[in-house]
């Protein structure tokens, strides 16, 4: 979670990028603290991918600066900068002539790590990502499924243990079942816990599920930067409101937690025993898919009622 007392690990100031007369990123500024996950969200063509690529100098800005750990990135060789930042893209881009193990080992090798250490790290990462090395290390990318390839892509980005990871629609090309599964793994991945993450997506649900903060972009401009709850309940403008309109209810269910509905629950409800940080959505899931279905009114009905009251209590 964000520790706003520490110095920002990434600071972008007034970033602008034009292609011809067309500005794809306009005057974007933000500061990101270590361990924070920022999701860049917006419709296609809003400039979110360009913004991401400005951070590791795959694109150079026309104006503005990026500082990482207080140092202007332009004072570093772009290659060296990138080796210190994990990078995952939608099409994965595994090197087709490298084995899975060699793909994962790419950055540590570029950095000149010891071969034995590289091997151990690769094996550990593959195991962690549910790709047992005995079975997968020697395979080639074309022998893997899309989901497996993206897991290797993730392992590759993590191999040198960079403090920052950039992800460009990492789950975008996967089928819904695989996507949900990998997203869960992603959330639960220990290696990612203390990383600073910038993730690009156009999937609102994905953004709410993963983000500490969301930056909603349109036509290269920041529409709103804030926590999911702020974007949902204190929308800065009509664009933001309209952007979430279609999925308002599922987003509210994901955003409000049991802690929020607590005051409105009937006293003695068994729901009070669940963790307070659990989103209402997940609590509902547990109530409806558990092995035993409590017929009592203390269940779904009570929760929905409390949820409705909590919504009304939110400032609009």
């Amino acid at each position: 979670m964000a520790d706003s007392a520490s110095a920002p690990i990434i600071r972008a100031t007034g970033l602008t990028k034009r292609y011809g007369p067309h500005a794809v990123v306009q005057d974007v500024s933000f500061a990101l603290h270590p361990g924070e996950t920022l999701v860049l969200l917006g419709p296609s063509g809003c400039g979110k991918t360009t913004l991401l690529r400005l951070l590791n100098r795959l694109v150079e800005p026309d104006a503005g600066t990026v500082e990482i750990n207080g140092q202007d990135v332009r004072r570093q060789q772009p290659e060296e900068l990138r080796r210190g930042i994990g990078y995952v893209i939608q099409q994965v881009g595994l090197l087709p002539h490298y084995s899975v193990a060699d793909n994962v080992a790419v950055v540590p090798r570029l950095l000149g790590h010891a071969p034995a250490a590289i091997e151990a790290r690769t094996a550990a990462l593959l195991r962690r990502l549910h790709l047992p090395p005995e079975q997968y290390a020697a395979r080639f990318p074309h022998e893997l499924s899309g989901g497996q390839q993206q897991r290797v892509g993730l392992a590759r980005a993590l191999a040198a243990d960079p403090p920052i990871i950039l992800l460009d629609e990492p789950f975008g090309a996967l089928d819904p079942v695989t996507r949900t599964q990998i997203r869960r793994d992603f959330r639960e991945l220990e290696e990612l816990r203390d990383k600073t993450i910038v993730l690009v997506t156009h999937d609102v649900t994905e953004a709410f599920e993963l983000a500490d903060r969301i930056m909603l972009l349109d036509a290269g401009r920041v529409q709103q930067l804030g926590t999911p709850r702020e974007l949902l309940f204190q929308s800065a403008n009509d664009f933001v409101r309209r952007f979430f309109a279609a999925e308002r209810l599922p987003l509210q269910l994901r955003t409000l937690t049991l802690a929020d509905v607590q005051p409105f629950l009937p006293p003695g409800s068994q729901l009070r025993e669940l963790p307070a940080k659990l989103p209402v959505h997940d609590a509902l899931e547990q109530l409806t898919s558990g092995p035993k279905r409590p017929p009592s009114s203390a269940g779904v009905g009570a929760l929905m009622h409390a949820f409705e009251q909590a919504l009304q209590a939110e400032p609009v």
Partner: protein
Amino acid sequence: MKTLPELLTFWQTQAGKLGEQTLQHIGLTAAALLLAVVLGVPLGLWLTRRPRWAPVVLGLAGILQTVPSIALLGFLIPWLGIGPKPAILALLLYSLLPIIRNTVTGIQGVSPAVVEAARGLGFTDWQVQSQVELPLALPVLFAGIRTAAVIGVGVATLAAYVAAGGLGEFIFGGIALNNPVMILAGALPAAALALAFDAALAGLQRLDSRRLVGVGKVLLVLLPLLGGLYLLPRASSKLQAGFSPEFVGRADGLPGLRRAYGLRRLPSVVLAPALVYEAARNADVDVIDGYSTDGRIRAYGLQVLRDDKRVFPPYYAAPVVRPALLQAHPELRPVLAQLTGLLTDSAMTELNYRVDYLHQQPRAVAEAFLRQRGLWRDPRPKVPGAAVVRLGSKIFAEQYILVEMYAALIRGATDLSVETKTGLGGTTICFEALRSGTIDMYPEYTGTGLQVLLQPSPATLDSLNGQPAAVFDYVKQEFRRRYKLEWLPPLGFNNTYALLMRQRQARELGIGSLSELGQYLGR
């Protein structure tokens, strides 16, 4: 099918030469291929980084590809002389296009996502090229190298024209001498070489791209070694000769000379007839074969070595015609006869000099000569549907001039229409064109008719003993009997074979005749 045993015999007797030519051929091809890879691949890589230049460079390489190889060699000779340099450069230029193009195509075919990911992970541009793009483009690149190799083997046959050796020596010798066995003796190994190169590279192509990188490295070592084959030591001696393919093979050419004068220690290279004079002038070689009336003898300061033992038969020029032509148009006979005995050796040398050295048009030279002799008449107006007389010529200036003279005379004195088919490759081609009726007439030389076309027994040759009149009568008689073709009376000059040296060198070494050349070499 007598050809096969003859071919085997030929290979057997010429085994040394065959081996040498094959090695030269491989060496030339490999050297050019290596250079093309060393130049073409980086150029292709550069083009993928500067796509704006791609159409320019590929267009240029494409244009080079369309220049006929023999013309390309022609352009390179004034600049590089003769020998392996122009041959390798020409081969290189031909190999360049497929290699550059396939490098570019191969690299453009690499998935952008892979390149994007590699950059994002911190590959430098050089690492992206060498570790990602090149290995992934290698199969396509290899296909380009394969194409270049096969083209190279083919074009390398032309190296023989610039004294760079290779299997073309047999092929062009065979063409010049109308000897199919000799052509096959060079063409078959050349074809086999092309197939072998192709198969070897195809085998490499099938390997997966990781091993291909290793193979590529092996190839970079192997190609210079193969190229080195070319540099195998050759015999060195006092004088170096350069002969046209025809001269090397025909009985009254080099073999006859060697019999009469020795000349054993005269190493020779083979080169295009059009280049021998240039080679002698530039001192690339010292002794050449030529024709006694060639204009360049005077222009280049060369000297004819006297044929004191009369090895070269007389080569009196005379028109050879299809009798049908004279029967259909009897008025032609007196028109054609106007040139009979009119052209002396010196007159012909002078005319050749104007064309070969002063670069005047053969037609203008012919007209000037006819005007000077009072034979010129303005061409008659064209008669629609007039019969056509087709005049052929071999591919050198003297023949062009003669054909232009005949054309002018016929146009001025008859209503017949004239068509010229000049530049027919050689004796055999002219002769066959005449027999088949593709042309009606061309100027031929008595010696050529005797030696190349009739090929009489040594006994017959002895009986003729090089007597001009005897040779002409024999040729005329035999052509009538065997081919039903008619020799008209000779024009006057004797354009015989000759060995030539630079005047200055000949004087310094005290060589004026072929016997003296033999003595000098034997010393």
